[in-house]
């Protein structure tokens, strides 16, 4: 029984939402488009001519490749550590009532309400006061620190309200603790952990501010771009950014398919 006025209002709301989405995409379109630019001079921000040069020679700039390798290494290690730490905290919070769980919750939320520049600079002041040489290790330490909260909160949100009596049932059926963990607990929490690990990896790969304070002379991918926007900004940066975008979309699509399949399997199992 929608009146015409109401219909118009709804259409206007939809149009507004579409405009906001376009605002979100505009720079992404520009990034992709300018990966095909043949810029005049050192900076790739004025359109000159169409070219596939950057795509056919993406590894032309050695420092960009090195920075990418360093970032991938940091992301791989910090994600592995943070995913284990964060998932364990989430498990504890969901399955046990224990004294101090409120404090643990608070400790998880606090880093999220602290600006990155404070996180980075306070960690720097710790390293300075301990005379720690800044480099690969300090970057990893920093990335694990800011990732643990995200992982713990993501996993907790995904496994809240699970039926943990399944574990009891497995134990009653004679499964040892190790079998219970590998055959019941892990399969239950795996999708949540996968989502958290991807988030952690993406955050690590993208972090600039905290890394800037704790990297010493090492140059990660975002730090390389920071330097590039001051000296020379080749279209290869856009090529890498576009590749990361489509790479993560593929990964995301694959994960969604996998999770849909595993939900189907588990509901199918319950029905049969």
């Amino acid at each position, binding site marked *: 029984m929608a009146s015409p006025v109401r219909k118009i209002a709804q259409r206007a709301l939809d149009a507004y939402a579409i405009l*906001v989405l376009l605002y979100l995409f505009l720079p992404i379109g520009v990034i992709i488009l300018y990966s095909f630019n043949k810029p005049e001079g050192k900076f790739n921000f004025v359109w000159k001519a169409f070219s596939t040069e950057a795509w056919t020679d993406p590894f032309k700039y050695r420092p960009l490749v090195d920075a990418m390798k360093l970032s991938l290494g940091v992301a791989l290690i910090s994600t592995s550590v943070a995913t284990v730490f964060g998932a364990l905290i989430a498990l504890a919070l969901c399955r046990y009532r224990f004294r101090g769980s409120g404090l643990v919750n608070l400790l998880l939320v606090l*880093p999220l309400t602290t600006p990155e520049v404070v996180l980075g600079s*306070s960690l720097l002041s710790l390293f300075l006061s301990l005379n720690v040489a800044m480099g690969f290790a300090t970057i990893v330490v920093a990335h694990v620190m800011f990732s*643990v909260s995200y992982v713990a909160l993501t996993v907790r949100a995904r496994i809240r309200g699970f039926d943990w009596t399944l574990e009891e049932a497995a134990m009653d059926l004679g499964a040892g603790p190790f079998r219970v963990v590998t055959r019941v607990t892990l399969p239950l929490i795996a999708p949540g952990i996968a989502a958290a690990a991807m988030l952690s990896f993406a955050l690590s790969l993208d972090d600039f501010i905290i890394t*800037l304070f704790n990297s010493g002379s090492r140059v990660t991918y975002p730090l390389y*771009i920071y330097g590039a926007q001051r000296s020379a900004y080749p279209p290869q940066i856009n090529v890498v950014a576009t590749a990361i*975008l489509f790479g993560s979309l593929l990964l995301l699509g694959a994960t969604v398919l996998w999770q849909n399949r595993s939900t189907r399997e588990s509901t199918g199992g319950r029905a049969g």
Partner: protein
Amino acid sequence: MAGIAAGGARRHPLAPYLLVAPGVLWLVAFYLIPLLTLGRTAVAGAAGPWYDGFARAFTVYGHHLVRSLDYALIATALALALGYPLAYVMAFRSGRLRNLLLGLVILPFFTTFLVRTFAWKTILNDRGPAVWVLTRLHLLPAGGRLLDTAVAVIGGLTYNFLPFMVMPIYVSLEKIDRRLVEAAQDLYSGPLRAFGRVVLPLSLPGVFAGSLLTFIPAMGDFINAELLGSPNQQMIGTVIQNQFLQVRDYPLAAALSFTLMALITLGVLLYARVIGTEDLA
């Protein structure tokens, strides 16, 4: 009561503590202790009295603090104005497109923050499309600029943190029972009043979380100001970074960083009081 498992009492009382230990110790060592070190650096290294760093932070860089606060508040308000309707459409009007829209909103996160911000430089520069269009429409005087202005910096901040505003609002809207909305429309005779009386109040936790997740990173950000602004738009993050890494006046740098943290904590508490919720997660 400690250590009783939700499913039964068959577990060791220390089990939860062992599970949280590695992550909690890491956060204590590399989050909490550094904050204390930061405070000590601000106070102990000061050349004059202990508050010397803080005094200089306020007298020399007070206007940077105020400007950061201004920009972050405006960006948060803009993100709310842009983000709430989008979240509403996603939650109530998207139907089968909902998951696609969710994916589209987080799409920008799959491109690097710095590359995204640099892309705005492409759009907003003097020879770029935005200036061209706006001068043709006479919205910008001939020779007018967008880059190196507050408009560009605030626009960049709004853009970069908009998804942080949309997602929590979407989550809180999505939880609302549809029957409740229909009942409200019958009861209050009209969609606008139903929205004001039912939907909006129920979505306030999302608005609260979204505003904080936008305001906090915007307040500490310096990339947008550095890439899209001139020195006249410099924010407090640039000063902290500069003092820590180039000038190396550690007491001043630490005092600035500590002040930023304190201001934000104060703001969060105040905001929680006003909006009447302390539910962050």
